[in-house]
C-alpha cells in the first residue's frame, strides 16, 4: 500500500514539476536544448517509475501511529524552531535547548538532559567558534 501511495505522490510531484517547468521564463537568447527539456525528461522518468510502484508495489513498512508519530512530529517541530530562531536566540542557548530535548526524548533523564544539552552546546561552540573561527549565531548575549 505504501508503495502505491509513493507512486501517487511521485505522479503528483512529476506533474507539478512539469507544470513548473513550463512556467520557466525563457529569454530571447537561449541554447538549443533550453532550460525546460531536461527537467521534463526527469519528470517523465519519475512518473514512469511511480507507475511501476502503483502496478507492482512492494510490501509496505510499518508506519508510526499515535504517540510515536507525535514523538516524531515534536522532534521535527523542535528542529524547525531551532532553525528559525537560532539567529535571534544565539547559538549556545538554542543549541542547549534543542540538544537537551533530543537527548531527553532518546532516553536521558531530565536533569541529565539539561546538562548534556549545555555541555553539547558549549563543546561545539568551543570547537567551531574558538578553534575553527566560524561565525556562529551571536544572539543577544554574543554567544
Amino acid at each position, binding site marked *: 500500500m505504501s508503495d502505491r501511495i509513493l507512486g501517487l505522490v511521485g505522479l503528483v510531484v512529476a506533474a507539478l514539476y512539469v507544470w513548473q517547468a513550463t512556467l520557466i521564463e525563457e*529569454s*530571447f*537568447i*537561449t*541554447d538549443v536544448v533550453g532550460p525546460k527539456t531536461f527537467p521534463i525528461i526527469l519528470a517523465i522518468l519519475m512518473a514512469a517509475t511511480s507507475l511501476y510502484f502503483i502496478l507492482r508495489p512492494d510490501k509496505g513498512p510499518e508506519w508510526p501511529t499515535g504517540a510515536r508519530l507525535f514523538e516524531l512530529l515534536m522532534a521535527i517541530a523542535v528542529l524547525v524552531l531551532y532553525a528559525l530562531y537560532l539567529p535571534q536566540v544565539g547559538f549556545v542557548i538554542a543549541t542547549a535547548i534543542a540538544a537537551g530535548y533530543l537527548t531527553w526524548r532518546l532516553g536521558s533523564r531530565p536533569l541529565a538532559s539539561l546538562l548534556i544539552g549545555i555541555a553539547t552546546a558549549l563543546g561545539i561552540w568551543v570547537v567551531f567558534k574558538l578553534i575553527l573561527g566560524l*561565525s556562529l549565531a551571536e544572539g543577544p548575549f554574543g554567544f
Partner: protein
Amino acid sequence: MLKTLLRSAAIAAGVGLAAPAIAQEAPANPQCIAPANPGGGWDFTCRQVGKTLQDLGIIPTTMQVTNLSGGGGGVAYAEVVNKRDSDDNLIVAASSATTTRLAQGAFPGNTADQVRWVATIGADYGIIGVSGSSDISSLAELFEKVKADPRSIAFAGGSAVGGWDHLKVLLAAQKVGIEDVRTIKYVAFAGGGEAMTQLLAGSVQAFTGDISEAKGFVESGDLKVLAVLAPERLEGWAADFPTAKEEGIDVVGANWRGFYAPGKMSDSAYDFWVGAITKMYATDAWQSVMEANGLAKLNLSGAAFKDFVEKNVDEIQALSRQIGIIR
C-alpha cells in the same frame, strides 16, 4: 556606453578625486560581508582588504568577515537592505556581477539605489582570445568570420548567458555591425578555467574572459589574446596585447571589485569608509596585492563611484533589454 563611462571614471580618478581626510572615528566593530562561501572572489575581497586595512593601522581591530551566500549575492543584498540598513560598521564586497544582476532584476525587489556605494579596489579587464594554434590573428578577423557565418565560431565563457563574459562579446559584436547579436553562439561554462580547457580541447573556437585568467596560457602558447577590452594598453606582461579600440572596435569591459555599505549608514561612517579604502588604495602594500591578483587600476570612490554604478546599471539594462534578456 561603458567606454565613455569608464573614461569619465578614469578622468575622475586621474584628476584626483582628492581623498577625504580621515577625520572620522573608525567603527568599533568593523565587519565585511562576503556574499558567497569562503574561497571565492568576494571572500578574498573582504579578507585581503580587511587584512591590509589592519596592517596599515587604518582600522584598529580585525575586520570580521562574515560569509552570507545565496542568490549570487542577492541574499546578502536583501539582508543589508532589510535588516542592517543603518549599520555603521558594515561594508559588503561587490563586483560587476553585483551590478549586472541588479540591472537585470536578478535580485527581486532590490535596486542599486538602496545602498551606498563606497569605492573600488581595482578592476580586471576583459579579453577575447582564440587557441594558440588558430589561424585567426585579430579581433576584426574573428568578427568577420562571425559575420559571415555566426554558427562557425562558438565563444566559451565563464558566465551564464546574459552574464558579463557573454555581454562583452555582444558589445563588441554590436560595434562591428552585427545586427542580430542573438545569433552569436555562446557556450556557458562554470568558470574561466573550464571555458579555457574546452578551448584547448577544441570544443569551442574562441574564449571570452578576464585578463587575470589568461596569463599562464598565454605564456605557454595555448592562448592567443586577440584584444584587451581596456581603455588603453595595460602595463606589465599584458602590454603587448592590442586594445579592442586599436582594432577599430570601440569597447571597454571592466570587471571591477569594490564595496557597498548600508543605505542609511551615517555620513560620518560613510566618509570614514570611503576615506579608508581610498587611503589604502594609494599605498604600496595595496598596489602589490593588486599586482598579485592580476587587478588593473580602477580607483573610484564616493560620489564618482555612485555615478559609475548608476551608469553601469543603466547601460547593462539597455543592452539586456535590447538583446531580450530582460523585458
